[in-house]
């Protein structure tokens, strides 16, 4: 075989490559080049979690923002809570996090502590005004001295309940009650059937947190360690087990089907007559359950304290890698401070963070909205400051609490063994 032929044919091959490769590249390029553009125009991405209903409200608010800021284009997307975090983790790892994102206090340290979120105390973030936000609420977005997030709304832990069932059992939770009274009433509701008195709260980290606060303890210390001992957890699970054993609380298989979305939770499916959640979820629970429901404060501890606090129901953050920090900050500021946005989104995520906007809305509220404003207004003097930002790994701790308590509820493990397992694994996970 001659060297010339070889060279010639290879040349032809290279030519073929030269044709094929650019074809492919243009194909790829054609798919991914509709953002950018000069002239001060900016395109930003904005993501949140939640239902379709919430998405419609949020999109309306975003449309209003675009009308008022014609040079900023906002691309939105949303998913359910669990899927949201999986998607966000992947996008962030891929180096393309959204510009404006919805963050939960459970994940604030996870993302903020890893420099994924921009410090809003410096740079473009300074444009976001927190002047009219309750300072204690505003402080919840600060982690290790940096403002990684601003509260998007305020809610309060609450008990959602079916007034008819509780009245029949001779109690009015809205007036407040002790844990003993609650246990007795829930038992009466449960034995009367068909629904049990309460969704078993042994799996809920939020309820454990409130219960600890009623005794002057906390779930996490400011240093990011567990703020309670195995003995505390034992007493909490013994309380939950008392509810379960007396048919006050849901049976194990119903408890295991618990899902944070009201539509799929035991109260939403009419399997229980009350559930610990947040006050802003009342309309969603009501829609799922079908009966008129109400919100009540938590049952109180020995000293009458309900342990409730002003909670950032969710946060807004700006990505540290965003190329459009100014536009992103503008959207965040608009979403928390604009009075018209307050009108559009209502109490879907909770009360408006801006106190002036909130006062305006409260004056004209009706129906479930009014229930919420009245509930929070009545509680306001008693509400404590929010606990410190949970440490990295808090998301995993919540799942750990759920599955170890399930072992107890299904009778596969004693409370003592479950406590030991929880404490060992939690300390490993937080170290």
């Amino acid at each position: 075989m001659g060297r010339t032929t070889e060279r010639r044919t290879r040349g032809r091959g290279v030519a073929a490559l030269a044709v094929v490769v650019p074809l492919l590249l243009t194909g790829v390029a054609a798919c991914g080049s509709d953002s950018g553009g000069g002239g001060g125009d900016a395109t930003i991405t904005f993501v949140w979690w939640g239902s379709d209903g919430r998405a419609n409200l949020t999109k309306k608010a975003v449309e209003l923002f675009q009308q008022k800021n014609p040079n900023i284009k906002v691309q939105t997307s949303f998913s359910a809570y669990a899927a949201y975090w999986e998607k966000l983790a992947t996008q962030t790892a891929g180096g393309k996090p959204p510009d404006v994102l919805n963050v939960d206090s459970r994940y604030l340290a996870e993302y903020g502590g890893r420099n994924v979120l921009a410090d809003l105390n410096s740079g473009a973030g300074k444009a976001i005004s927190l002047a009219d936000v309750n300072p204690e609420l505003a402080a919840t977005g600060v982690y290790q001295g940096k403002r990684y997030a601003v509260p998007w709304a305020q809610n309060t832990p609450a008990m959602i309940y079916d007034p008819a069932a509780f009245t029949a059992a001779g109690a009015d939770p809205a007036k407040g009650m002790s844990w003993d009274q609650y246990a007795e009433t829930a038992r009466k509701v449960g034995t009367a059937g068909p629904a049990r008195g309460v969704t078993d709260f042994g799996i809920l980290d939020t309820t454990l947190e409130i219960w600890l606060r009623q005794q002057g303890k906390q779930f996490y210390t400011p240093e990011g360690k567990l703020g309670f001992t195995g003995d505390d957890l034992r007493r909490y699970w013994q309380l939950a087990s008392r509810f379960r054993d007396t048919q006050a609380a849901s049976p194990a298989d119903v408890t295991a089907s618990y899902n944070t979305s009201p539509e799929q939770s035991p109260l939403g499916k009419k399997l229980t007559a009350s559930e610990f959640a947040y006050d802003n979820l009342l309309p969603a629970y009501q829609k799922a359950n079908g009966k008129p429901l109400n919100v009540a404060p938590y049952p109180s501890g020995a000293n009458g304290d309900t342990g409730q606090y002003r909670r950032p129901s969710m946060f807004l953050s700006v990505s540290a890698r965003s190329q459009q920090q100014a536009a992103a900050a503008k959207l965040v500021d608009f979403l928390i401070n604009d009075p018209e946005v307050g009108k559009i989104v209502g109490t879907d995520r909770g009360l408006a963070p801006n106190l002036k906007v909130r006062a305006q809305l409260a004056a004209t509220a009706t129906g479930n909205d009014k229930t919420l404003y009245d509930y929070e207004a009545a509680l306001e003097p008693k509400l404590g400051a929010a606990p410190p930002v949970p440490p990295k790994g808090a998301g995993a701790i919540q799942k750990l609490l759920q599955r170890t308590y399930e072992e107890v509820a299904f009778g596969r493990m004693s409370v003592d063994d479950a406590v030991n397992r929880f404490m060992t694994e939690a300390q490993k996970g937080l170290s």
Partner: protein
Amino acid sequence: MTTLRTPDPPVAPAAAARVRRRDPRGGRRRKSQPEAFAFLTPWLLGAVALTVGPMVVSLYLSFTDYDMFTTPKWIGFGNFAHMFTGDDRYLQSVKVTLIYVLVSVPLKLTVSLLVAMLLNTRRGANGFYRAAFYAPSLLGASVAAALVWRALFMGGGPVNEVLASFGWHTPSWVDDPQFSLASIVLLGVWQFGAPMVIFLAGLKQIPAELHEAAAIDGAGALRRFRHITLPMLSPVIFFNLVMEAIHAFQAFTPAFVIGGGRGGPADADLFYTLYLFEVGFQDFRMGYASAMAWVLLVVIAIVTAIVFRTAKLWVFYDDAESTGGRK
């Protein structure tokens, strides 16, 4: 460089050999190569960028502590050591997966063989039944099928109701640690269509004369099944066994959906892949997740190798028949 120069192994050597034999001048073989690569480029780009590349990266990550946001930190065999010494949930996921493989695969193969034998008759309406039995497999690992399954087996669902009408009161299957895995096994078995179709094809290949001759010699249906059907079908059984075992090890969707996206009640449905997903994408431990993926790959390879080794003992290849028949 090296990847580009190495020819595509499965096809290229054979094709090249054929070309060389036909063309004694030998020039053609070389000539065809660059063009071949040019046309293979899309595939090569895909394979390198989407399969080989990520695999190499994940192998590297499996030796690191990597949270997806900050730079990976090399920790040697730390991840692998942790799996077997300090992680109870890992062992639970191995246990759940092994139970699933050991129960669902034999069950699925038995059911699919039985149905294939039922359909391997000359009665009418067979086409309809074949399609009907195959249909569930078209849904494959779909989320929809798993959602329906969850609705069927949940508290107050149809399965509860039917069993209750026979006096057997069960809890919500999908939410009870005792029943949850069983409901997932049933879903896997229900999707028996793919092995069934292959079994059916295998059954049709068995010469009718063998059965006739044996019947004349007085062999009953059971004996004929044991001494004719099973040996003649053993290559097909072997194929189905390997495929189904590999699939079962990788099961994810049904466990994810039926277990509520979190490993089910008290981790009863914590499949290996599910735990891997949780570790990587929810707990931000991508290094550990990568290590888990590599262990799974190695285990599947070993199991497959063992099945191949034992094949000599029980798989019967009727070589004379098959080469003769292909003329």
